[in-house]
């Protein structure tokens, strides 16, 4: 057991020494920069997720009455809507409330004051299910006293679809750059094997097993991957911090406190571990391919 541990410690030590030479650090940087693209994209998408999730949850229809409609007409319409089984939730927004909401938004009070009167109609906001939304919107548009029907679900669905496409694109990018990581490691390990050629040959002559010879290279690939993953997470965090400085100025001007959230710790850890795994894989493929070429003789 202690022999086994000693051999692993020795292999790790060798890998660390080789890694800290320029080539190992440069490879880690290359890997880190490549991986920061999908990791950064993932972080941005994660920031959008609460918005898309809320929008897609329940399709909404906004129903605007004609401006001259009487409150009694609105109440009658409300009764009728409540009776429709396709309507899940119904909320009446009187024109006074709508105006109050609007006045809370930066820049609007002046505009409304200039108009001199409330330009807003009474409205209903109702939620329904995804299958009924289009038919319901069409039916509502034909009711008397209704000026305009807007099915929010359409653009909500589009946004969700866009987010889905973006997510798929990110996975493709991650797959592509992950393969790049394996290739980079494959190549640095190949070069490392070539520079250690004499040592490998001598090791084979004095009775080193293949596992013994492979071990430092496996560790080197793992280290390079882990370091690359850490660099990627670092780049993403730095980029988000930089973005947040600008975003906060913009968001405050809209009265919002929006900030990009950093990668959750679990996700950041997953990026680092996954990069380490790919580094190990690249080293494994390289060692298997190139070690047999070096035989004493």
């Amino acid at each position: 057991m202690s022999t086994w541990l000693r051999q692993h410690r020795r292999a790790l030590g060798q890998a660390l020494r080789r890694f800290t030479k320029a080539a190992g650090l440069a490879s880690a940087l290359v890997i880190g920069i490549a991986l920061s693209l999908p990791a950064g994209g993932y972080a941005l998408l994660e920031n959008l997720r609460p918005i898309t999730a809320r929008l897609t949850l329940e399709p909404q229809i906004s129903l605007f009455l004609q401006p001259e409609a009487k409150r009694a007409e609105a109440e009658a319409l409300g009764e009728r809507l409540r009776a429709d089984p396709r309507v899940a939730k119904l909320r009446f927004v009187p024109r006074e409330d709508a105006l109050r909401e609007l006045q809370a938004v930066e820049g609007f009070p002046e505009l409304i004051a200039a108009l001199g009167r409330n330009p807003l109609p009474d409205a209903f906001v109702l939620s329904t299910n995804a299958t009924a939304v289009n038919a319901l919107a069409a039916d509502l548009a034909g009711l008397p006293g209704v000026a305009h029907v807007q099915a929010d679900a359409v653009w909500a669905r589009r946004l969700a679809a866009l987010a889905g496409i973006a997510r798929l694109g990110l996975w493709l990018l991650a797959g592509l750059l992950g393969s790049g990581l394996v290739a980079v490691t494959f190549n640095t390990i190949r070069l490392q094997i070539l520079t250690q050629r004499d040592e490998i040959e001598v090791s084979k002559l004095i009775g080193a097993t293949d596992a013994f010879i492979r071990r430092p290279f496996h560790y080197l690939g793992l280290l390079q991957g882990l370091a690359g993953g850490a660099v990627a997470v670092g780049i993403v965090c730095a980029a988000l911090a930089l973005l947040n400085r600008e975003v906060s100025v913009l968001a405050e001007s809209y009265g919002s406190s929006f900030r990009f959230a950093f990668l959750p710790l679990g996700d950041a850890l997953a990026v680092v571990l996954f990069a380490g795994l790919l580094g190990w894989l690249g080293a494994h493929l390289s060692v298997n391919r190139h070690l047999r070429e070096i035989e004493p003789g």
Partner: protein
Amino acid sequence: MVSFSSVAKRYPGGQEALREVSFMISEGELAFITGRSGAGKSTLLKLIAAIERPTSGSVIVKGQNIGALKRAAIPYLRRNLGLVFQDQKLLYDRSVYDNAMLPLAFSSHTPKEAARRVRAALDKVGLLARERSNPIQLSGGEQQRLAIARAVVNRPSLLIADEPTANLDAESAARILEIFVAFNQVGVTVLIATHDQGLVARYGKRILRLEQGRIA
């Protein structure tokens, strides 16, 4: 310890290095293999260390059939052999001490025991005072002695040397051979290939002479 019976070795190019070679080396023996360059001396030693495999016939080393040896078993065979090469195969990126330490990296010795063995091996070849030097600073004879120290640090029962005295002056060559004789005197089986017939004649040991791949 080593037994060849009707061994032939043909290289991929069609060149026949060994033909119908049969001999036996007993435990504790010291034998020389002589012959001109190209006579098959190196091939013969490579077969013993499983660096090459016989085309036909059987090579038995310490009870193991080299022709049938699995790839994974080769390292364990070599750990019981001490190999010394004409070109020493030292590593110039580390000290004399670390070169001699190499074979102990995969042994089960404690670091303390390993250090003791390395110093003992360096002492036997007269290099203990140079343990911190780089092999490049050593003379040809000293480099060859370091190669011997590395070969014996694991205390193998069989020591094989391919032209260990080539490129050395007579005095250095004689010193190298004295070291091999000393190991043989404590029970190590020694097999040395050399083209220098004059040098080996004065030891009165067994000589296997190879001529064009056959034992003459």
